[in-house]
């Protein structure tokens, strides 16, 4: 049993509280991603799970056992550090051997595990090399190997891809995904990159300023964001946010007016200040002004091959739209646009919370 449970976990450094009473449940075998901007507390939370930081308040349980006072080595976790944390003066093999020493295994078992892990991660040719003789991607894999070789109950990853170049990032990302499928171990993964989160996670935990903003599957957080922050953090290009006021069954903004879909009627009050959100792919071009929500001027077009991104100007605001490349208008054109009403999100302007919640 290796579920992880955080109950009202607080982290303080002196008088400063950086993690404010968070609750989290992680099921066995789940791939959970802690996602958020820098300083949101995701790494601190990961380190508390690992035992590298003390829990100031609240309860941390691993495998049903409260582990607040339990040393890291007794928690059954292994960690892949952001900068790999490899022993620079030891070979790859020695790095892995050193990680196994505390387990006091038989020599044969140690050998077996190292060989298996090396083959699994494609490191078998590199066992006699030192970290300084390896590329970034190879060092990454050695860091994973060092964690893997201990056959832990929980794998912790601290922004493992942030030091790799873009191409390598995609490659290693895929490998991590495959690894999870193959081993089925519980994984807690920290990143600020929402693409990593969306592609790898069973469950995403979005954090900001020491609070959990939303927990859910990638689909959930994408289609039903709880607040404006989550809505704009997830999805690339980011969701467009437009300030408006509720007036006569319409959302009235600057040079733009959106009819309010039925499902929102009861949740809104007349005169309420809101922000409505619409994702770039959900902005469609229409031929005529009938059925159009607004008229927009195309400022910049970015051709991406399959799609094109349009930088639109409506009144005083800028919206980004994503259209199929073959429908791309010219720059400085005036076009009519409409939104897919099913894809509309409405957030209270003051609280930022979605009115659907």
């Amino acid at each position, binding site marked *: 049993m290796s579920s992880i449970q955080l109950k009202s976990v607080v982290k303080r450094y002196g008088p400063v509280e950086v993690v404010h009473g968070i609750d989290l449940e992680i099921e066995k075998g789940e791939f959970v991603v802690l996602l958020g901007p820098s300083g949101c507390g995701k790494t601190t939370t990961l380190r508390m799970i*690992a*035992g*590298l930081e003390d829990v100031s308040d609240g309860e941390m349980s691993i495998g049903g056992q409260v582990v607040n006072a339990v*040393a*890291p*080595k*007794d928690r059954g*976790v*292994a*960690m892949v*550090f*952001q*900068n*790999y*944390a*490899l*022993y*620079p*003066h*030891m070979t790859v093999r020695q790095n892995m051997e*050193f*990680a196994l*020493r*505390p*387990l006091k295994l038989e020599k044969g078992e140690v050998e077996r595990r190292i060989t298996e892990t090396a083959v699994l991660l494609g490191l078998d040719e590199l066992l006699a090399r030192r970290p300084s003789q390896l590329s970034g991607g190879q060092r990454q894999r050695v860091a994973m190997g*060092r964690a893997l070789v*201990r056959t832990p109950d929980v794998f912790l990853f601290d922004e493992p891809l942030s030091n790799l170049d873009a191409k390598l990032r995609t490659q290693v990302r895929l490998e991590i995904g495959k690894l999870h499928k193959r081993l089925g171990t519980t994984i807690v993964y920290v990143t600020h990159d929402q693409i990593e989160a969306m592609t790898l996670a069973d469950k995403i935990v979005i954090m900001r300023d020491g609070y959990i903003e939303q927990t859910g599957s990638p689909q959930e957080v994408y289609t039903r964001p709880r607040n404006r922050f989550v809505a704009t953090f997830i999805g690339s290009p980011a969701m467009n946010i437009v300030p408006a006021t509720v007036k006569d069954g319409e959302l009235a903004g600057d040079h733009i007016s959106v009819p309010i879909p039925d499902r929102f009627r009861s949740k809104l009050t007349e005169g309420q200040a809101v922000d409505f959100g619409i994702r770039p792919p959900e902005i469609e071009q229409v031929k005529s002004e009938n059925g159009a929500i607004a008229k927009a001027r195309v400022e910049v077009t970015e051709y991406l091959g399959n799609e094109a991104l349009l930088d639109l100007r409506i009144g005083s605001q800028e919206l980004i739209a994503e259209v199929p490349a073959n429908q791309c208008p010219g720059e400085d054109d005036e076009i009519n646009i409409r939104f897919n009403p099913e894809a509309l999100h409405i957030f209270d302007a003051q609280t930022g919370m979605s009115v659907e919640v």
Partner: protein
Amino acid sequence: MAYIRKRNRNIFLVFMMPAVLVLFGTTIYPMIYAGYLSFRSYDLAKLFVPRVFVGWANYQEIIASSEFLHTLTVTFKLMAMTLSVQLVLGVGIALLVTQRLPGMGIARTLLLIPMMISPVIVGLVWLFLYFPELGYLNYFLSFLGLGPYAWITSTDWALWAIAIADIWQWTPFIMMGTAAALTNLSPEPFEAAKLDGNSAWDVFWRVTLPQIRPVLISLMFLRAIDAFKIYDIIFVLTKGGPGDTTEVLSMYIYRQSFTFWRMGVGAAASFVSLIIIVVLITLFFKSLNREAHQA
């Protein structure tokens, strides 16, 4: 470099010339003169006796003499005593002082003071502590149930007296360099070891020590060079005595040259010691290179 052309290179050489000349003048010239001396009988005590060319006589006298051999033994023995203790103590204190605890910075700074004091002063204050009958060291030791020791007057303890004073002065040097090296180490591997559960001793012996080994070698090398030349402290504490129990190389040269006024012999002894140190350094670097190639 694009802008270094031939003409500029000459200017650079001009930059360097004065320093080279000065160094040349202050080292090579006296060395040559000393070489000249070493082949002569140059007894200043007898002012009007001609300074005769005696060939290798001075060297033969030195190499054959049991006194010189004894001097070498004392020198190397003292080096071994001081360097080994300084290394262990220095590294140990460095480990203490690099802990992330309040007050460590001040402690670290204070501990640097002994090595910036003139060796003469070090000698004098330890003389105060060692002084027969009056010195405080025996008094303090009596509380631990040790002593009393006749520090500078007994043949058993004189060398230790010097060693202790030298250790007191130079351990901070090892501590300082080691502490700097320790703080330069990346902390992440240590976190990984903590997570994996490696024991503290294992971490120190297999992770910390191997990484600071090059620095330790540098530090010990510098200390060894200085320890070979040790002089001031001995001059103050024992002047080579009692008898010749603490007569190190520099004291021997001093005695020959300025007590017996046999400058020729003194010069010859200087050269012999120079050769010894050059040989030692060369051996040292050779073994370093061999290690580097093996690694």
